[in-house]
């Protein structure tokens, strides 16, 4: 789910106000604090993922056998094999111990290590969401800057209006609509793009790259369309905050061209909250692409999560949950660590 898009990011990246006390030497301390916080969060995620998914109804062992008639004895053996006969607390300590060594268990439905399954699907998700975040951040920054610089003008209003409208659109619906228009084709529009998947499977080398790019157009367009509003609005309001600054008047008084005042003076300062935003978005998208991946049958983590949930394939769901939450923790941490380096006014 997306958070409210409005208003500048007034606090630190994870929402916490960065520590303001101390001098330059305080940075290592600041880093240590943030690292500790991230470790605690990760532990909390492990605990949550374990207990949350124990309450999913349905007997995992029955699901594993896919309705094939199995004797009670065989079921018991399976339970033993997956450690499901142990008391809950013992399952939990086993789970934590293994998770810390990177072993996330074995998937019930694919009979393969969860870590391997995730590693196999990760590149596809990274490719799709990474491309989308890069494009919509750049687009949001550019349009947001233009909007704020001409605050209240017709182009500002059109820009903000279009962005807010697209932001209100459900991503899966936009994806389906794009498929109908550009893949299936209606009226005079021919089907130009594939309906789903990542490759056609009959090309190699440079042709393969082009093929994947061809498959990426529609899903990336969907993610960009529903996502760029947030960057635009944050950039716009943080630039508006800067625009009253005396240093801009000084810069203008020196006789700098309007364009230079904007690019060299105002934008770098306004960029800071937006950079935080980009990191937080990067953390969000892995989980946020569940819908788009499902609609476009993209072979990534989001689709895998949906598949795992319907079984329910406990170890896989747990593993993916840890990965999704871990991505957010990692990106928040990176933003926290970068922020004081980019802006000497905070965190030192």
């Amino acid at each position, binding site marked *: 789910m997306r*958070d409210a898009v409005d208003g500048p990011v007034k*606090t630190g990246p994870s929402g916490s106000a960065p520590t303001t006390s101390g001098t330059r030497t305080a940075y290592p301390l600041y880093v240590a604090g943030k690292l500790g916080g991230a470790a605690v969060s990760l532990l909390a995620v492990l605990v949550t993922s374990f207990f*949350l998914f124990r309450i999913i109804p349905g007997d995992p062992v029955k699901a594993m056998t896919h309705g094939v008639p199995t004797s009670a004895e065989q079921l018991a053996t399976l339970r033993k094999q997956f450690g499901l006969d142990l008391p809950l607390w013992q399952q939990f300590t086993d789970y934590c111990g293994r998770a810390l060594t990177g072993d996330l268990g074995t998937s019930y439905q694919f009979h393969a290590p969860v870590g391997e399954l995730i590693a196999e699907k990760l590149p596809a998700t990274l490719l799709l969401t990474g491309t989308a975040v890069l494009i919509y951040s750049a687009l949001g920054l550019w349009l947001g800057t233009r909007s704020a610089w001409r605050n209240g003008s017709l182009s500002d209003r059109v820009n903000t209006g279009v962005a807010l409208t697209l932001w*209100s659109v459900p991503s899966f619906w936009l994806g389906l609509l794009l498929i109908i228009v550009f893949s299936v084709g209606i009226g005079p529009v021919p089907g130009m793009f594939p*309906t789903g998947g990542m490759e056609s499977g009959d090309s190699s080398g440079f042709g393969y790259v082009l093929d994947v790019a061809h498959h990426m157009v529609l899903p990336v367009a969907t993610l960009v369309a529903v996502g760029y509003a947030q960057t635009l609005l944050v950039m716009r309001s943080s630039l508006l905050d800067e625009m009253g600054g005396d240093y801009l008047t000084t810069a203008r008084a020196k006789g700098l061209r309007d364009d230079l005042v904007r690019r060299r003076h105002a934008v770098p300062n306004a960029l800071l909250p937006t950079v935080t935003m980009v990191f937080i978005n990067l953390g969000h998208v892995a989980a946020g692409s569940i819908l788009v991946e499902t609609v476009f049958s993209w072979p990534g983590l989001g689709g895998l999560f949906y598949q795992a949930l319907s079984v329910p394939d406990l170890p896989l769901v747990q593993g993916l949950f840890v990965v999704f939450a871990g991505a957010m923790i990692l990106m928040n941490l990176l933003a926290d660590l970068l922020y004081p380096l980019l802006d000497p006014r905070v965190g030192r």
Partner: protein
Amino acid sequence: MTLEKTPPASADPSSPSASSLAWARRRGSVARFWKEYRTHRAGLLGLAGLAFIALIALFAPLLVGGDVQSVTNAPGTALEKPSGEFPLGTDQFGRSLLGLLIWGARISLTVGLLAAALSVAIGTLVGVIAGHYGGWFATVVMRITDWFLVMPTLVLAIVLATVMSRSIWTVILAIGVTSWPTTARLVRAQTIAVESRPYIERARALGGGHGHIMTRHVLPNVMPLVLAQTTLGISSAILTEATLAFLGLGDPLIISWGGMLQDAREAGAVSSGHWWYLAPPGIAIAFVALAFTLCGRAIEAVLNPKLGVAR
């Protein structure tokens, strides 16, 4: 972030009474608020859109009749194209899509309003209490809030909706309990700002307890912020509801816009190019979400003119 403040009502017991003064003051700030709000064209547009949808939802039984959801005595044949009788065509059971669309407004609005109310209520409670008491208690509470903030909300909501029984209350609960941390953070910051003002010290000196200060002094001052958060929260709650319904996690017996999209996909509307089946529910969702967002932004702009929202 607060409205322009008039001095607190004096404790003078003589005429006019303290409460009538307080009411006069409240009426005054509402009037000032509306005067400001009126100047935001986008906000008025959003408000008009909301009124339109609310009327449709309210009078849906009169507009389309109560049996629009019935599969057994559906008026048309399956998957008809738009025609005079069925302006938007029919679904795979032969039901009128226009009727379903109108009926779906009720669910979207109900779920959106209730889920946002639940989320904002939790957030406000946590924020005010953490901001008021401070100390280790606040640290623990905010740590829990942070922990909820890093949880992937949609994933958590999907899991909750999977775990619990399929009903509209499950969806409301799943959205409500996963989306409160942003509000909690904002409200806590505002509470701390309010409590540093001299009149809180005065209230304390006069013997006001924790409960009195929180409900009589802090709460009215964070209310405008809470209102803005609620309005913005409703639009994301409506989007999440549609998402959950689309994933088949909603109540299968209730008509909702997200559920209609799921039906459309299952009926093969995508591969056969039946855009008239797919387009209207999505447009309706976007329309309502946009209307709430416009109102929320206008409210925020009134409270904090520095945001520079175009009028």
